[in-house]
């Protein structure tokens, strides 16, 4: 009986694969083939089968995540899309919230809508906020749009009517009329894709779904048939931005739910490591070449949200992208990676990123044409990398090039030697990441007290210690397999589906029967989606209400029992709201009515929990370094000989007292002064900061 599970993560540069079989894990990295991504996947599959010795017939499940949908939106390579919308509201996509994301930049550019104005086509119809028809759908007017859609060679259609999330009757009728005339053009309804209040977010999400839908559907079908041609019979699942898996059928209908699945995989990887190691409060820190991603993980679960911005034009600035209202794992992404370029601003301050040297030309030390100093140059200049061992020795770094770039672009302007400029660059990027983590905790109503930082990605293990110090975190964990964390995360994800619906309710007039009807319909929809891929595995259901005091701006999630509500529940839910509110905001507001804006129902398969961590041998001797090398400490600025260890040569229980560096092929783990490291029972590096 086949039992191997294969995960495939297509990123911008690399396609990562992870194969789990008989308790073993094989990982492979191949280059992404952007014009036909399935080719890179097929190369990777062949490679990983060869390396692992697993037969294609032994694969029981394939899990796939891809940035294709995100890239199509960023690069504007999606379908020619029209939006049919309520008369009087043609410009919802363009007007957004009528604000600028930067107060002082007169030359600010706002993101262009995915659908240009001449393809945003109004039709007379109107509902009120309760779903009552104020103006019937003008069917003749809608039919009159068909020749325009044909003449403009529209490839995909979004329909977004005001208040359609309350009553989809007009959207459905319009879709039916269009389907008669244009049977080959796919249609996305706002009442299906993102049935929630707030027209800008809903229409934007629906337009984005329509925009990527034809391309994603074609790609997924091609990939499926290529895999089948190789003799693979296992079902294919897609990783969603919310952290669950779904079937290819659902993915083809709602491809917008696939954006950012790679980073979601990284967060699931972190969450799995947290559960393995019994850590209740974790800060996941994934630092790559261009960005760092930060995610809070409490009780083994990544924090989730319902909104997300894609394709930010303002260099990672909040508010500069297109809003998507879909279930997502909540992450902060900042322009701080190994390739982030350092500069000096008008005030003589060192700044790092968000501009990135990327992989091409890359940092100056790659000697590939890059002349400006990147974070990797600064790390090299401080002595943190062995220039002969970078990327497993496949790439030789040139410290002299780093030195020159740091001196020319940072040191000379501030009167600093290159090595001190390097120190400034590294301190500043660490400071930026720590600040982002602090603000994110505040936005989430949480703190960093007693958290463990789980660091991965190429840069995470290098910067983890110092970022933790700056946040006030005293424990850092570096799991193994950190280089392909997202793909490994895919293997740990459940088959899941989340349905969100708005139904405005006040507590003073709570309609128990109405809410039960809605929640049960939502459960049926979610369960139907999950049953396509769960093969009878046990599932659990979670119900959440998004509630706020009447008139307040932000809702907070309150769990509901996963069963029919009875009258007696109403008071309990209200009490639960007050408790949650107090947890977020310190005190409830007496005498205010509470309103419920929307509900979420999640149906998910039960993931077999992480096996308890084997105990590491205790009392292990201090590990033996392979060499000693001069490294500059960023806190004191002093240079001293640090012990360098080889991760593959470390044995369980081995103890290392910082300062030290543990080198491996994909990255280096830096153990700062004042930190002590050891390998835990799973072979992960665990660092603890001594009391100061």
């Amino acid at each position, binding site marked *: 009986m086949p039992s191997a599970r294969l995960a495939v993560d297509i990123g911008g540069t690399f396609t990562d694969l992870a194969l789990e079989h008989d308790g073993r894990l094989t990982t492979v990295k191949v280059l992404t083939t952007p014009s036909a991504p399935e080719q890179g996947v097929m190369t990777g599959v062949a490679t990983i089968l060869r390396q692992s010795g697993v037969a294609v017939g032994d694969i029981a499940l394939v899990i796939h995540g891809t940035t294709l949908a995100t890239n199509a939106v960023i690069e504007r390579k999606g379908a020619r899309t029209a939006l049919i919308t309520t008369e*009087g*509201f*043609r*410009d919802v996509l*363009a*007007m957004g*919230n*009528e*604000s*600028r994301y930067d*107060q*002082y*930049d*007169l*030359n*600010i*550019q706002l993101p262009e809508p995915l659908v240009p*104005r*001449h393809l945003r086509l109004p039709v007379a119809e*109107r509902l*009120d*906020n309760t779903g009552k028809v104020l103006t019937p759908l003008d069917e003749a007017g809608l039919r009159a749009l068909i020749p325009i859609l044909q003449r403009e060679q529209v490839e995909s259609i979004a329909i977004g009517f*005001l*208040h359609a999330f309350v009553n989809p009757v007009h959207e459905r009728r319009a879709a039916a009329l269009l389907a008669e005339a244009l049977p080959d053009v796919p249609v996305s309804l706002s009442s299906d894709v993102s049935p929630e*209040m*707030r*027209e*800008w*977010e809903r229409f934007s999400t629906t337009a984005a779904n329509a925009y990527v839908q034809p391309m994603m559907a074609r790609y997924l079908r091609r990939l499926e048939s290529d895999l089948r041609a190789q003799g693979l019979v296992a079902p294919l699942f897609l990783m969603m931005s919310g952290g669950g898996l779904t079937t290819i059928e659902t993915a083809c209908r709602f491809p917008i739910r696939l954006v950012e699945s790679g980073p979601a995989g990284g967060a699931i990887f972190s969450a799995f490591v947290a559960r393995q190691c019994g850590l209740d409060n974790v800060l996941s820190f994934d630092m790559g070449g261009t960005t760092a991603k930060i995610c809070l993980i409490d009780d083994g679960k990544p924090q989730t949200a319902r909104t997300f911005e894609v394709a930010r034009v303002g260099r990672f600035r909040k508010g500069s992208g297109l809003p998507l209202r879909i279930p997502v794992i909540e992450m902060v992404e900042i322009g701080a990676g190994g390739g982030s370029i350092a500069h000096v*601003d*008008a*005030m*003589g*301050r*060192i700044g790092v990123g968000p501009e990135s040297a990327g992989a091409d030309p890359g940092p100056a030390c790659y000697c590939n044409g890059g002349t400006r100093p990147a974070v990797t140059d600064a790390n090299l200049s401080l002595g943190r990398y062995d220039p002969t061992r970078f990327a497993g020795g496949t790439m030789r770094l040139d410290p002299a090039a780093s030195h020159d770039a740091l001196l020319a672009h940072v040191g000379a302007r*501030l009167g*600093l*030697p290159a090595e*001190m400029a390097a*120190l*400034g660059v590294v301190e*500043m990027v660490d*400071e*930026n990441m720590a*600040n982002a983590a*602090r*603000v994110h905790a*505040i936005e989430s109503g949480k703190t960093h007290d007693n958290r463990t930082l789980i660091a991965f990605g190429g840069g995470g293990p290098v910067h983890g210690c110092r970022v933790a110090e700056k946040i*006030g975190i005293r424990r850092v964990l570096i799991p193994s397999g950190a280089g392909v964390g997202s793909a490994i995360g895919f293997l740990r994800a459940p088959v899941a589906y989340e349905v969100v619906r708005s139904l405005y309710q006040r507590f003073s007039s709570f309609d128990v029967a109405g809410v039960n009807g809605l929640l049960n319909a939502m459960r049926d929809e979610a369960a139907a989606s999950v049953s396509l891929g769960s093969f009878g595995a046990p599932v659990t259901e979670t119900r959440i209400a998004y509630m706020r005091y009447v*008139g*307040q*701006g932000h809702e907070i999630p309150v769990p509901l029992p996963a069963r029919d509500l009875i009258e007696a529940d109403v008071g309990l839910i209200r009490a639960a709201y007050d408790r949650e509110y107090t947890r*977020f*905001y*310190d*005190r409830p*507001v007496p*005498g205010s009515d509470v309103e419920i804006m929307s509900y979420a129902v999640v149906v998910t398969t039960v993931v077999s929990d992480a096996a308890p961590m084997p105990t590491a041998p205790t009392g292990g001797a201090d590990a033996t370094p392979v060499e000693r090398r001069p490294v500059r400490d960023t806190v*004191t*600025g002093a240079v001293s000989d640090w012990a360098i260890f080889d991760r593959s040569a470390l044995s369980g229980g081995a103890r290392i007292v910082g300062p030290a560096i543990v080198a491996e092929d994909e990255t280096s783990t830096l153990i700062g002064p004042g930190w002590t490291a050891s390998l835990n029972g799973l072979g992960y590096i665990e660092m603890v900061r001594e009391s100061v």
Partner: protein
Amino acid sequence: MSNETNALAQIHRQIMWNRLIAVVEEQAQIMIRTAFSTTVREAGDLSAGIFDLHGRMIAQAVTGTPGHVNSMAESVGHFLKKFPTTVMRPGDHYITNDPWLGTGHLHDLTVVTPAFHDGQIVGLLANTAHVIDIGGLGMGPDGRSVFEEGMYIPIVRCFEQGKPNETFFDFIRAGSRLPVELEGDIYSLCACNDAAVHRLSEMMGEFEMTSLDPLAQFIFDSSRRATLAEIAKIPRGSFDNEIFSDGYDEPVRLSARMTILEDAIEVDFTGTSGLSPRGINVPPAYCRAYSCFGIKCVVAPEVPNNWASLEPFRMKIPEGCILNAPHPYPVSVRHVTGHLLPDLMMGCLHQVVPDRVTAEGSSSLWNPPLKGGSSVSGQARGNRPVVGDFEIITFNSGGTGARPGSDGLNATAFPSGVRTMPVEATENVAPIIIWRKELKPDSGGAGHTRGGTGQIMEIATKGDLEYAVNASFDRIAHAPKGREGGLEGGNGVVTLKTGKKLRAKGFQVIPDGDRLILELPGGGGMGDPTTRDPAMVALDVRDGLVSVENARTLYKVAVTAEGVVDSVATTTLRG
């Protein structure tokens, strides 16, 4: 080695500056998350900053809106005059909404909190937020003195060593239509300062600081140097400009003479109209705030806001003019006038750095306070129904002025930094139907680059029943001007659907069966429209933002409604 020590000290000062900005950013984020007023939480009408013991602002949160930012910078000094640092204790919080000691109208609360570290007072945290209700007439221009406009809070201690001043809160609760929200907002403002005090102390511990002064001096020196370097790039001279606001019942002239000196930019507002009997007057701090913002956007946008970076911009505002309103003149909607000041400043700067300024924009927000039910129509009687009671305000923006290298922004707030609310959300909190809210064709001023287009709104109640608007609109009689040969943007229009014109300002009723139509202004154009790339004109025509007729008459481009350019005819038109 001492070189290395110096180098390390320099880097640490930079890191500390960065951290200080992070501390005040956390302060602002906590406020956004915990405030009750939608003006703070949804619209972002707030600011937060840290000050030294002389009341000089050291750092300010990136999040925030310009009117608050710069006037809050002045406010802390007033607190110190009444409550010197020697009487301040840990856990104290001080508050005011005095328009002349804070940010210009009673709806803005400013809270100042002393920061202690190791038992010593080391600095002050301050923040400002726009609350939803402060009693009185409510937001609108109709008050004839500040006493009618709402509850007046002089600078008082609202918390003493962590304990709420219950007498103060009794007054506050009694004086507002929304006592729970107002009290909650004050707690939130104090709590976010507390959090910043705590974080500041942690930071000072981590960096082994005993005083903020050396860091403040470093920040001031770097910022002043950077600001002066930017000012030095502007040629010297004096430049005059004037613009007109519609005023309440007569036009208001705003005049400025800007003098660029070697180390400062001075603005003299002599020639500006006198005071108005209605609430469109501007207290001087608010005038300085928006004038300074307008100059800074052009001259030194990258330099962070603090005492030293704002100090080189100096304003001379004559007594008795509408930009220097004394107590107790009414000032509730001072933003309607004040938001025009960046346009006034850029008109001066245009004469010396024409490639760095924008054309005039819609600028003043169009925020109609709407109200219906028994307070407007009395009780329902006989067969005459009355709409359910409601009071609501929505934020809406016209177009911004064309930029030298790109078109103005369509329906986007500038200089204000606020955001609008979704129509679906608005219709869920009040019995109104917004029948139309979309861009207004041909309202963007024609130019080489086009002004941003305005928008049209059509607003009714459910069932088209009677309701009222407290109008405070501008740029109706005085459309935003273009520059460099660019044409005016479309002027604003306020009418009933049945055609009757309404006044730009003041309380007016929309009768049964009728609807309110708001046409928001478009931004002015920049440069000669007949030099605009015909392909760009064609895109605007295809998108319906510019009519075929305007393309022909203003841009001299012959183009079909589908956006197909007739190049031969265009060449002929353009001569």
